[in-house]
């Protein structure tokens, strides 16, 4: 449909129009509710907060919002593929490319990452007895950069300029020659900005975990979720930095006439190397925190200490280390030669060893345990067999000779959905149900939670199991249709049913949150009979925690204190806490990145220059309003 505005005529496809209408209505409702309930103050409070729990909530909130959008993309994909030669709405050809691009990019960067970072932000300080993350201001900046990057990426849809290059952004398709439109720029800058935020948050988590632990909380006594968060943060530092430079080079290619990834001298394979040096560790960045969540959940609901704690820690480190040595297994068909392929095939197979160790340790933790089948525990139990299936197809794919058959088919799609959904998504669900009482003070309804679990798990297997077979039959990924003579109609239709079942399962989550909120039954600080420190603080977590500071003498110290019927010993000898500060600067700084990128995308250079100047101005203001000024030199008089 065509729309005329200010004398310009725009083409607006009906899906974009629908998005506008839907967003305006939804935005109107939310705005009305905020005004009616007089919650503008709350909104402002969250915009200026640097408290780790509130920032964690913001991360999770936006992660869930984007989860619904990216999930909707998935339903469009599956509806288009439900029947042979189908013509569903507009999702053929380029529109199909757009929809799988946004689905993949958003699920990885704007769903899985913020949900995990949100859980880490909220839980890690509580698990180790830290009063906040080491750098509260930087933490807020990290979140708002993620927000600004995700907003930048999402806005492209409303302008009908969605990227259509796949979440991997392979060159030369992503260079100016083949995608001259603004779409790819939205991808480049969206990821660049949010990636910067992710790096800051990872840095913050490392300093917090290394330097802000409670007295007696040795590294070897930390809960496993904290351990996996630490290893993940190191992976983020390296992987996201490589991605940042890859995007930086791509930006030079697209905007300033460089030729790294195309042309006679440039090398598209170089993009693939850089992308996968980021991309493969990214898979472990998503999986390891989930492993940590499962370890804590399984241990709590089996009433047993985790089996083989040192080996669990060691295998996480080993997975993290090996994760950097396997990237070329995404490129077996590129033609790197038999030596390279063999090397990367072997390192890939090696990763199965520490992962297998972890699986057995989870099983041994449950053995002879007193198991309670609560919702978080169900997700953990669903994870183990589902993830093992994904692992097995992973080993199949690592056989580089056979990979030539599997490459770019639905078999690969089945594999990575099996590993990522089974670990990351089920892990996030387990974590959300598990820590929901700590965050809000309410326990989510167990019955609805179980409905959610079963519909999701069945839907998940129904969607992705048939893809193994369609893939082996030769159905390529990223192709919007197939012929009846291909003989994959029944399997594809089954996948579509499964996808909608997963969609329905998410309605149970909404219903559950609403119901729990309406009933408003507060629970105590320790509803699950937990083992780790976070259950010793009040629910919902107050702004000031660990006063007085507990002293930790062993793994699961809180549990053993409860078992002995004692309170945990406390001390008032604590290191200086991070200084709390309230500031709108992180939000403003992040928005300057948004407009800077906007200016570059549309060649409105005045806007970029203005935003950059504004950013430096804000940095100066930040330097002059350092919250530590009031804190330093209190004891000794300033000598100058």
């Amino acid at each position: 449909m065509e729309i005329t505005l200010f004398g310009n005529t725009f083409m607006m496809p009906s899906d974009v129009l629908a998005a506008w209408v839907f967003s305006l209505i939804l935005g109107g409702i939310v705005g009305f509710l905020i005004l009616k309930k007089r919650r503008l103050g709350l909104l402002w409070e969250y915009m200026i907060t640097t408290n780790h729990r509130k920032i964690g909530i913001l991360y999770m909130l936006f992660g869930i919002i984007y989860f619904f959008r990216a999930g909707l993309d998935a339903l469009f994909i599956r509806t288009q593929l439900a029947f042979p030669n189908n013509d569903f709405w507009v999702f053929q050809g380029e529109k199909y490319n757009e929809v799988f691009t946004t689905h993949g990019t958003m699920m990885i960067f704007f769903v899985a990452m913020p949900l995990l970072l949100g859980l880490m932000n909220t839980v890690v300080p509580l698990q180790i007895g830290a009063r906040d993350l080491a750098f509260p201001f930087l933490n807020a900046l990290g979140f708002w950069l993620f927000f600004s990057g995700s907003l930048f990426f999402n806005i492209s849809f409303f302008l009908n300029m969605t990227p259509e290059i796949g979440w991997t952004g392979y060159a030369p398709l992503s260079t100016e020659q083949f995608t001259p439109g603004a779409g790819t720029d939205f991808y480049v800058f969206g990821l660049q900005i949010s990636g910067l935020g992710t790096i800051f948050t990872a840095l913050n988590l490392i300093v917090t975990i290394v330097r802000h632990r409670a007295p007696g909380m040795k590294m070897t006594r930390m809960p496993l979720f904290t351990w996996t968060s630490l290893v993940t943060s190191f992976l983020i530092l390296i992987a996201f930095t490589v991605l940042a430079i890859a995007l930086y080079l791509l930006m030079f290619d697209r905007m300033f006439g460089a030729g790294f990834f195309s042309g006679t001298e440039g090398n598209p394979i170089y993009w693939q190397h850089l992308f996968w040096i980021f991309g493969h560790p990214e898979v472990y960045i998503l999986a390891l925190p989930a492993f940590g969540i499962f370890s804590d959940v399984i241990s709590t609901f089996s009433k047993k200490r985790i089996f083989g704690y040192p080996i669990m820690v060691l295998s996480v480190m080993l997975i993290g280390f090996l994760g950097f040595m396997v990237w070329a297994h995404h490129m077996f068909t590129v033609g790197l030669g038999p030596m390279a392929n063999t090397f990367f095939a072997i390192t890939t197979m090696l990763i199965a060893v520490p992962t297998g160790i972890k699986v057995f340790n989870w099983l041994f933790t449950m053995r002879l345990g007193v198991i309670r089948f609560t919702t978080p525990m169900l997700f953990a139990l669903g994870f183990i067999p589902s993830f093992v299936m994904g692992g097995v197809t992973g080993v199949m794919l690592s056989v580089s000779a056979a990979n030539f058959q599997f490459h770019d088919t639905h078999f690969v799609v089945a594999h990575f959905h099996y590993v990522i959904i089974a670990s990351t998504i089920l892990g996030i669900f387990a974590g959300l149900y598990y820590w929901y009482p700590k965050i809000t003070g309410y326990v989510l309804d167990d019955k609805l939670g179980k409905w959610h679990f079963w519909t999701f798990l069945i839907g998940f297997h129904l969607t992705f199991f048939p893809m193994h077979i369609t893939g082996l039959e030769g159905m390529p990924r990223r192709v919007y249709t197939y012929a009846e003579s291909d003989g994959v109609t029944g399997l594809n239709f089954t996948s579509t049913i499964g996808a909608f079942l997963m969609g329905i399962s998410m309605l149970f989550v909404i219903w559950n949150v609403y119901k729990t909120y309406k009933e408003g039954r507060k629970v105590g600080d320790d509803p699950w009979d937990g083992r780790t420190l976070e259950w010793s603080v009040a629910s919902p977590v107050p702004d000031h925690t660990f006063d007085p500071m507990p002293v930790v003498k062993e793994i699961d110290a809180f549990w053993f204190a409860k078992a002995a019927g004692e309170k945990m010993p406390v001390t008032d000898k604590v290191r200086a806490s991070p200084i709390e500060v309230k500031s709108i600067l992180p939000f403003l700084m992040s928005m300057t990145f948004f407009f800077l990128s906007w200016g570059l995308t549309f060649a409105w250079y005045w806007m970029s220059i203005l935003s950059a100047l504004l950013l430096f101005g804000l940095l100066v203001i930040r330097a002059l309003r350092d919250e530590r000024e009031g804190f330093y030199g209190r004891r000794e008089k300033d000598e100058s």
Partner: protein
Amino acid sequence: MNREEMALFKDKKMGFFIYLGVEVVMFAVLFATYLIFTPATQGPHPSEVFEAKIVILSSFFLLSSSGTLWLGERALKKKKQAFFLIGLGITKLFAIIFLGFEVYEFASFVKEGYGMSASVFMSSYYALVGLHAAHVAFGVGWMGVLFVQYFRRIPLTLFTEKLSIFAYYWHFVDIVWVFIIGIVYLPYLL
């Protein structure tokens, strides 16, 4: 510094060193890019492009600015305020001179027709050396803020801390320059 300030300073120091680790990864990838694409099969050869004179001059100013910063820091510790101001001032001046040489160098390359799109070697050169120059420019601004902080008379311990963090940054930027000399320029100037 008392114990609490020390704890907060060590947090910041560790965080900043991790950040410098991130920078190491960034520059490592850019160095790798340069090594992969240089010399390019088409377009100018690096030995035709680079000029030893400018490299030597700019290196002199940038590398000695690390020394003047160190002297300034030492002067502050010994409470010689004037020497400190001179040290930081010369550091900033040398950094600006370095930037001037960089701008001149880039401009003369472009004038000779060796712009960003001249060859993939030139692209990787600008992406790497340009990012380093941006770091120097950022440092110049940072030193400006440090001067303001000094005259605002913030607590001395806080100022010393801010100065040390800047010094880590500045020495790091210099080390990167040493690698740029060794990897980018030297092989084609000898």
